């Protein structure tokens, strides 16, 4: 028996205590769970506002700080309304393999005063009972839709028209984000049916946003002066604050994805912290060894890379695995953002793909190695096997995870490309060269940062 497994056996009775409430015939709202999910939701929104806004804005040049922040705050507002109108229904309506339905358009008929059942009406095993109201579930998931959309624009910083940002992101959220969320997180979804594991959004959020960012920066092309002009970050202090808010907010993101205040949420929080720390250490040490200096930007990049990598695995793995997953995230994302980007020559300005896309893939695959199903099926070792990875006797899981990664990459890439081409034909994606040199702040928004 490995030390990790001993830990699980010790934890199992604690988890089992929570089970009767869930298994009872008439599930009720649970005050503790609901309270935690309200807080977790606020934490995830804090990742975008102001976390991502500061993280990204600190890394751009002074002339596009406000435009970059608008790509977080305005997009947040836009996606909130999009989610309310149809995004939620497409993602979490019952529907089919790829797409929900329109039964909850305008959030009609959501159960505000009773426990939410995901997939209600599907019957039997397919229904996932929670003890939180649907309003909180809608809100929690909305904050995921928001950050996924906002992440993309790091790849095209400094050069995308604001009108194009708006025209692109609404259909992207409805036609790319919501269907992938449905396929992965809804019991009637395709990737759910395969048995793929994505606890908090490795495929849905990070691979999806990272790949969309990569496609967008390829379609838009490089920034004017890329490779010759000095494009150093104007204020890494802001980026540092933003990354720290992301780090803290991530506890809501990952531990909140348990949808309850239970042992699994606690484990998710613990492994999130360990992976973030491991990513910070590996990125900085590798950078120190290969580039000569341990940088502050490297530290925050490594933290985010570790956090991205643990996202699909949190809730499925133990602390030892988190050390490996976060550490691998730091090293591989460092390589992707420095060497791979240079080798292939694309201008992913703030490394949306290099950190989120690549880190998401690393995390999804390693979940297929380290997942320990008894964190979920706490009392049934046989049933738990179907939720375990390579290391715990289920080598098929690695293949399932790889399939889920490939489908997400392909769907996101093709869909993003088509939407960008349509928006390009409508209003043009990119500002003129003169406007780009002048900066998006003054040309798109009529403002200047001091």
């Amino acid at each position, binding site marked *: 028996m490995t030390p990790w497994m001993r830990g699980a056996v010790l934890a199992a009775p604690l988890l089992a205590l929570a089970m009767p409430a869930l298994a009872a015939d008439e599930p009720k709202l649970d005050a503790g769970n609901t309270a935690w999910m309200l807080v977790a939701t606020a934490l995830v929104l804090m990742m975008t506002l102001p976390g991502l806004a500061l993280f990204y804005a600190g890394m751009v040049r002074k002339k596009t700080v406000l435009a970059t922040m608008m790509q977080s705050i305005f997009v947040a507002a836009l996606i909130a309304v999009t989610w309310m109108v149809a995004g939620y229904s497409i993602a979490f309506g019952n529907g089919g393999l790829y797409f929900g339905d329109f039964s909850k358009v305008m959030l009609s008929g959501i159960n505000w005063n009773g426990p939410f059942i995901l997939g209600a009406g599907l019957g039997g095993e397919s229904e996932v009972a929670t003890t939180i109201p649907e309003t909180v579930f809608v809100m929690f998931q909305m904050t995921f839709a928001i950050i996924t959309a906002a992440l993309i624009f790091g790849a095209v910083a400094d050069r995308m028209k604001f009108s194009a940002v708006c025209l692109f992101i609404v259909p992207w959220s409805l036609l790319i984000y919501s269907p992938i969320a449905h396929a992965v997180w809804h019991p009637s979804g395709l990737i759910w049916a395969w048995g793929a594991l994505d606890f908090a959004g490795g495929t849905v959020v990070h691979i999806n946003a990272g790949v969309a960012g990569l496609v967008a920066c390829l379609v838009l092309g490089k920034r004017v002066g890329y490779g010759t002009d*000095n494009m150093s970050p104007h204020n890494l202090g802001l980026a540092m604050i933003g990354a720290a808010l992301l780090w803290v907010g991530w506890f809501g993101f990952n531990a909140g994805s348990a949808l309850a205040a239970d042992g699994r949420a606690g484990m998710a929080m613990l492994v999130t912290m360990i992976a973030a720390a491991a990513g910070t250490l590996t990125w900085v040490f590798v950078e120190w060894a290969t580039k000569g200096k341990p*940088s502050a930007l*490297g530290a925050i990049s490594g933290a985010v890379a570790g956090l991205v990598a643990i996202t699909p695995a949190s809730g499925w793995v133990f602390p030892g695995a988190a050390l490996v997953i976060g550490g691998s995230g730091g090293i591989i994302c460092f390589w992707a953002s420095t060497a791979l980007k240079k080798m292939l020559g694309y201008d992913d300005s703030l490394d949306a793909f290099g950190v989120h896309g690549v880190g998401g893939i690393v995390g999804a695959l390693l979940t297929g190695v380290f997942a320990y199903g008894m964190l979920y099926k706490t009392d049934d070792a046989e049933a738990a096997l179907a939720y375990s990875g390579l290391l715990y006797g289920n080598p098929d899981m690695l293949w399932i995870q790889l399939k889920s990664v490939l489908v997400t990459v392909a769907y996101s890439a093709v869909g993003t490309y088509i939407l960008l081409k349509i928006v390009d034909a409508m209003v043009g994606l990119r500002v003129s060269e003169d406007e780009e040199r002048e900066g998006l702040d003054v040309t798109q928004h009529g403002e200047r940062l001091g």
Partner: protein
Amino acid sequence: MKLVMAIIKPFKLDEVRDALTPLGIQGLTVTEVKGFGRQKGQTEIYRGAEYQVSFLPKLKIEVAVAAELADAVVEAIAAAARTGKIGDGKIFVLDLDRALRIRTGETDGSAL
């Protein structure tokens, strides 16, 4: 009258000020500037992207003094701002035609 203009390392400002006070200097103007001299630039690296930064931050001090005080001021600044390492800066002395204190209307020597 002379205008003494000195380009110094930013962290030497307080020492320079302390060196000038005993000479009876009543005021000076400080500006943050960038420039290059024999001290070449530095390399900055952001996620693997390397930038040669050829203009380094310095401070420019301007002091208007009576002509006979100029040499003492130059020596005081030079002594206080020197580290002996490359990049210590330079001092220039210019002729000054007129001076006027805006509040009182005093001119030239009494305006300094």
